[in-house]
């Protein structure tokens, strides 16, 4: 339905405004025609300076040998070479892949299932929904300690299970270098899946009732209706979710800082934490800037296809 509207929206922008300006003429007419652009101009300038200017600045910085503060002595791509020889960076990249894939997949799955379950005319839906949604309201600065305790074998879940008599139950991911990245996934999914659920509920409420009624009359079962009609119509929501989640994943910083501090060793390091540690606490600003540029590259790799399909979709709409 978006698509049909957006085609319409093209016409007033082009023909409409010329008509108005032609009628009024003069300076005020010109002003009226340019008003939208003028209104956007401050934002445009700010974005251009603060986003793209800063990216350029960071790129230049990544070509220098800067230590505790920016020093404009250029060393070429040396920092990038150092970066990819750095074992910890490779670990953090690998972690990001594992983390991002699992985080996005689980959030989508859990969010969708919860949305479908909550969409069954549940009593107290608002209350339950609030419970699922509240983690999104608090940052890991607030919940970090609680999570650390819950996942800690000698304090949290494992101890609880032992107290309840399940002596053989072990849950030591937090202290196991091979598994620690999955604890990040657990906490992150806890935080974001409710939000995904909200987006999916919103999407479900927008599905055309008539189509479902028609399918029911044809004798389709509930699962079939969901699979054939409801889910396909959620495609745009799905896509928005993936982008939002991907951006959360790549920006994840507080999570690691609060939950594991990157440990054991640096087994649970993520690129954002690597970058921060090197640029700000370790006096390797050049290296930190290089890692930021690589991260940005990753972001663009996700974003450009999205934008492309978005804008192209509109054109054909």
């Amino acid at each position: 339905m978006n698509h049909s509207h957006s085609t319409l929206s093209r016409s007033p922008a082009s023909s409409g405004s010329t008509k108005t300006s032609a009628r009024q003429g003069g300076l005020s007419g010109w002003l009226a025609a340019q008003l939208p652009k003028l209104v956007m101009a401050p934002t445009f300038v700010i974005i251009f300076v603060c986003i793209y200017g800063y990216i350029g600045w960071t790129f230049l910085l990544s070509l220098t040998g800067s230590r505790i503060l920016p020093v404009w002595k250029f060393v070429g791509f040396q920092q990038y070479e150092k970066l990819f020889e750095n074992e910890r960076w490779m670990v953090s990249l690998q972690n990001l892949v594992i983390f991002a894939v699992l985080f996005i997949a689980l959030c989508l799955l859990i969010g969708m299932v919860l949305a479908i379950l909550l969409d069954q005319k549940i009593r107290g839906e608002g209350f339950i929904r609030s419970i699922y949604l509240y983690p999104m309201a608090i940052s890991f600065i607030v919940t970090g300690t609680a999570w650390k305790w819950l996942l800690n074998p000698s304090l949290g879940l494992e101890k609880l299970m032992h107290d309840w008599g399940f002596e053989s139950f072990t849950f030591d991911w937090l202290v196991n270098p091979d598994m620690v990245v999955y604890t990040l996934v657990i906490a992150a999914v806890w935080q974001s899946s409710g939000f995904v659920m909200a987006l999916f509920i919103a999407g479900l409420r927008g599905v055309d009732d008539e189509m479902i009624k028609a399918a029911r009359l044809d004798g389709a079962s509930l699962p079939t209706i969901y699979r054939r009609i409801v889910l396909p119509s959620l495609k745009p929501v799905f896509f928005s979710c993936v982008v939002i989640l991907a951006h959360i994943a790549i920006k994840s910083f507080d999570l690691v800082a609060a939950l594991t501090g990157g440990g054991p060793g640096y087994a649970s390091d993520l690129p954002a934490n690597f970058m921060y540690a090197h640029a700000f606490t370790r006096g390797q600003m050049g290296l930190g800037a290089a890692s930021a540029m690589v991260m940005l590259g990753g972001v663009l790799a996700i974003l450009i296809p999205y934008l492309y399909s978005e804008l192209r979709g509109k054109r054909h709409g």
Partner: protein
Amino acid sequence: MVEAPMTPVRQLARYGLYAVLALVAFIYLMPLWVMIITSLKDTEEIRTGNLLALPGSFNFDAWVAAWSSACTGGTCEGISTYFFNSFQIVIPAVLVSTLLGAVNGYVLSFWRFRGSELMFGLLLVGCFIPLQVMLLPMARSLAFFGLANTTTGLVIVHVIVGSGFTTMFFRNFYIGLPQELIKAARLDGAGFFFIFRRIVLPLSTPIIVVTLIWQFTQIWNDFLLGVVFSGAETQPVTVALNNLVNTSFGGKQYNVDMAAALIAALPTLFVYVLAGKYFVRGLTAGAVKG
């Protein structure tokens, strides 16, 4: 929405459904539960007792301490003043970024011009920049305008960081509104701001709610920008919380830590629980449609 007649099997499935929902709710509540009960225990009980067990006796001393007497650096006056600092930062930042988002979204969906789609794309990319990258150049820019370490400067930073998201929200919402409304108004000679104020804004309530909630949560929870760009006397509550919780040595009082964390989280929790309904309603009304 998807209904079927009730049979015994369905009845059973229904109970199962509630059981699943309750179990998930239980899991989701666990961290909050741990925080609440820990804040009500005394230090001895925290050291020896079970993490999930109820406290032997409820006492709110930790809450009082966190609010008015816990040490957050050189001063020991709790987090109350910082709490109000946060409001001074959050309220203008949320309002300005939301308004900016609304106007930008309005232009990008109803008053398109050559290159406006490209601008939207550039704006979107801006949402995805890791904040850490922006710290130093931003500090320099603020200093250039004499705004380094002032509340105004911090508010501006939040507006810049947030306006990409707010624009996206509004633009995606407005794209779903019937364009005929605006078209007719324009033919009647209504101006840019007139249409915005009289026609578009009144229709925007759901998306305004979504944006306000989103921005409020983002800015209230921010730590990094707050700690770097605020002044010594205007630090937001997250910075105070960090100072209180992250002691580098000596006598950790977990009950006070937890109480302080919960106090710091109250406004956002309150907003989500109170306005959560509108949040979903607003999303339903089109915020998420790409």
